[in-house]
Structure formats: C-alpha cells, structure tokens
C-alpha cells in the first residue's frame, strides 16, 4: 500500500454478465457496469436483493467469468482468482472441525506458507476482533457474529491488497451487525485496503464507505455514484448526524426509483420525488 493512493485498483469497464446466453431463457444479471476504485478506497455497492451486485463482486474476485466488457484489478486483467484479492462471503464458511485459530490459519495452509510464521499474527488478529480466549473453540461453540469475526481474521491473515465483501453481516441480528460495523470501521483505520462491500443496508453502506454505488434491477446497472463526505475515523454516532440521515434518505429514494421503474408498466406512474430531493 506504499504506492500512490490515487492509482486505480479496480477498473470495471462496460462489464456485463449474461446467464444462459444465446438461449430464449437468457438472463442479464449485470448490464454494462462501469466504475473505478482508487487504491485504498472503501466502496459500497448498494442495491435490492437480486439486482446482480453479488454477481458483480464475484466477477471482480475472478470467481465468475465476465460475459462482456473489461475488468482490470491492479493493472492486470482478471482471468481467475488471485491471492492479492480476499473474498468474504455472506456465510462465514468456516471448517466445522477446526478451531477458530486453525480456521484463521486456513489460507496459510492452503497457500503452503509457514504456519509457524503466521501463528502469532493469527492470535493477534483474533485478539483485535475481541476473540481472545476463543482461539481453541470450534465454530459451533461460537455465535454468528463471532464466526464472522473469525472469517474477517481469515481474510486479513494473508494480507490481500483488495478486499471483496459480499453482504458479510446480512445473516446477523441487528445488534451483532452494529458491532461488526463498528469493528470494521476500527479495522479499517489500521489496514487500509481497497474494498468493495456489497450490502442492501443503506445505513451500513453510508457508515462504512467512502463512496456508495447504487445498483438497480432491470437494468442491473449502477444508477448513482455518491461520495460520502464524512471524515475518518468514524463511529456509530454518525448515525445520528443529520446529513448522514439526509444521504440515507436520498439513497433510499434512488433505490425506490429503481424499483418503480421496473414496475412502471403495471403501476402506470413513476414516482418523481427524487427529482425534488436532488
């Protein structure tokens, strides 16, 4: 991360994803999306479920092939998964027979790096996310929030430059979710990495991100690119800020607008409220 922070880390250029292409049942999951993320920036992709935002994220991670368009990460076109990209999924995807510590060390084992060299770092990470004393517990002995914390540590242990997070906290209850948001804000102060964070929670997106991209269904594309004006370090107290709530309201209208358009033929009219809001 010593290089110029303004150098683009992720370049998405007219990227589309079509399932069952060439058949009558072809579905366009992502439709000509373009944006760039500079190094070190935290970008949230916000949209309703089923709008293709996860598919987009998986393409950036090299886990899904691009149907058309260009996708470049750290100057190299994406051809498949890379160790410089870390992916966090909706589920913690921990190995049930391994302890929290061994789950954190799992990427080290997969990548055939030295376990001994990383053990201290793994313990350190677990301590930072508040799991000291739980190193030797199995996933079934941990709460949902704790499991997702282990998953965060597992992503950070091999020090990827780019972090991709696919609704990592959506399965958690509201209180754990707030805790995880706070934790992520804290971690972000130390490990500034390029991040793409997919969520359907407006407040989560505004709280965590430097920039919010709003994605809609039909067409599955980005309709808004909003820069969040709040300086870091941020805290949960930001949620009470008036401007924060204004931004959230604006984003909600943009999302509803996306819904409205897709339902327009049936509803007959299109809401125009967002025009006033702008």
């Amino acid at each position, binding site marked *: 991360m010593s290089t110029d922070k303004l150098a683009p880390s992720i370049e998405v250029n007219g990227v589309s994803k079509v399932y069952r292409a060439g058949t009558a049942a072809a579905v366009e999951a992502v439709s000509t999306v373009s944006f760039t993320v500079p190094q070190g920036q935290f970008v949230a992709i916000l949209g309703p479920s089923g709008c293709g935002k996860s598919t987009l994220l998986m393409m950036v991670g*090299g886990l899904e092939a691009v149907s058309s368009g260009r996708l470049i990460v750290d100057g190299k076109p994406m051809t498949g*998964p890379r160790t410089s990209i870390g992916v966090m999924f909706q*589920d913690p995807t921990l*190995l049930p027979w391994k302890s929290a510590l*061994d789950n954190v060390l799992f990427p080290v084992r*997969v*990548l055939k790096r030295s376990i001994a060299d990383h053990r201290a770092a793994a313990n350190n990470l677990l301590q930072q996310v508040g799991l000291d004393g739980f190193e030797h517990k199995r996933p079934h002995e941990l709460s949902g929030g704790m499991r997702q914390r282990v998953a965060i540590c597992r992503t950070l242990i091999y020090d990827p430059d780019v972090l991709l997070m696919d609704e990592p906290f959506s399965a958690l209850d509201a209180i754990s979710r707030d805790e995880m948001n706070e934790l992520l804000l804290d971690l972000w102060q130390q490990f500034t990495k390029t991040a793409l964070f997919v969520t359907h929670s407006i407040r989560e997106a505004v709280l965590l991100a430097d920039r919010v991209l709003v994605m809609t269904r039909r067409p599955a594309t980005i309709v808004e690119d909003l820069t969040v004006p709040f300086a870091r370090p941020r805290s949960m107290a930001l949620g009470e800020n008036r401007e924060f709530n204004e931004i959230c309201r604006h984003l909600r209208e943009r999302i509803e607008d996306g819904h409205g358009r897709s339902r327009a033929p049936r509803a007959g009219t299109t809401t125009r409220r967002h025009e006033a809001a702008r």
Partner: protein
Amino acid sequence: MSLELPAAGSPRGVLAIGRSVRRVRPIILPIVTLTAVLLLWQLAAVRLHIPSVLLPTPSDIAQEMWHALPLLVDQAVPTALDTLLAFAAAAVLGIGLAIVITYSRPLRDTLYPNLVFFQLVPKVALAPLFVIWLGYGSPARVAFAAFISFFPVVISAALGFAGTDPAVLRLCRSLTASEWRSFLLVRFPFALPAIFSGFKVAMTMAVVGVIIGEFISSQAGLGHYILRAGSRLETADVFAALVALSVLGVALYGAVALAELGVRRAYGRR
C-alpha cells in the same frame, strides 16, 4: 406430619440413584436380556429334553468353547486375515473410484447408475464364479469379499465428496487452491463421516464374503469349521464357532469405529 421429616432428605437421594440408573441402563439392559434368554434356553432345553444335536444348552456350548478354544483361535486367524485384506482392498478401490466419480462428470454419468444397480443385485450368488476364475485358494475368497464390500464404500464416499459445503469449496477457489489441495484440506475431511459409515458396512460385508468363500472353497477358517462341524452333527461345536465368529465380527467392526474416532480427533486437533 412427623413422617415427612425423614422423607425430606430422601427424594434427592432417590433422584441421584435414578440418575445413575438411567446412565448405566443402556449397558445393563442388553446384558440382562441376553442373560435371561440364555437362562430360558438352558432351562427349556433341559426341561423339555431337547436332544443336544438339535439344540445344545448354553452350558454345553460354553464347555465346547473351552475345549476347542485353541482350535477356534487357530481357525479364526485365516478368516480374520482374509477379511482384513478384503476390507483394505475394498476401502482403497472404493475411495479411488469415488474420487474418479467426483471429479469426472462423464465417468460419473457412466458409472454411478451402474454402481447403484449392482448394489441391488444379490452379489452373494456370484461366489461360485470367483472360484471358477481364481481357484480354491485364499485369493478367490479375498476377491469375492472385496467385491461385495466395495459397493458401500464407493457409494457413501461419493456421496460424502459430493456433499461437501460448496461455499467452502468456493473459498478454496478464491484462495487459488489446486483441486488436489482442496480435496485434501476440505473434501476429504468433510466426507469422513460418510466414508466411515461406508467402512462399517463394508467390514460387515467382508466378514460375510469371507465366510461364504470358506463355505464353498476352503480347508481352513471359521466358515470351514462351521461347515465341517455341521456335517458331523456336532451342533455344540457349530455354536461355539458361531460365538467365535461373532466375537471376531464385533472386534473388526470395533476396529473401524476406533479408527474413525482417531482420525476425527486427529483432524480436529490440527
């Protein structure tokens, strides 16, 4: 009212006794039942004057076992060795084929339905074929026993490999893990419970296979011993060999269960 005072302390005592009874009940009950059946058997055989050729008393059998013990142990050795060999062959070949089926779509489509079909065929009927192909020696028995115990291993291992959490496999992909690496670190450990349940069935089938082999082609082993004693109407001897065979079967099954415990623990700790 005065009666209540001494009673006040005892419910806890009764509860404690109740709790410990409940804990040992799963061990005590089967033993009590077995003993009762043996006693009834003994009583009935003596009282009803059942000829010992038809049904020897448990005490006759115990006596016979005591006399024939060195011989029975001697005969159990080839049976045990053939069974272990057959099981090992079935385990290795079964897991090997399950891996092939897991990773090759065309081979899975070709082989899997046939495997399921063969699973349903009464394979015991094929035993004479193995004698024709491999002669009257141990190889025929081992091959036959391996053949009938191989199917449960393939099917349960293939199911176990296929049932691996796809999210974890995707995680492996995102970490650029090779297929072999994610097989070793994820698929195989995920499939272990399924593999071992296949192993347990396979071990039971291997014993059955070897005994059938010994029935039709052997000069040694517990199967041969049973057949010979039966032809001489030495019924107590038949029963003694059956007891020995049961002990052998339980021991072999127990070995698989113990191995499972060990392997699971080894995976958990590391």
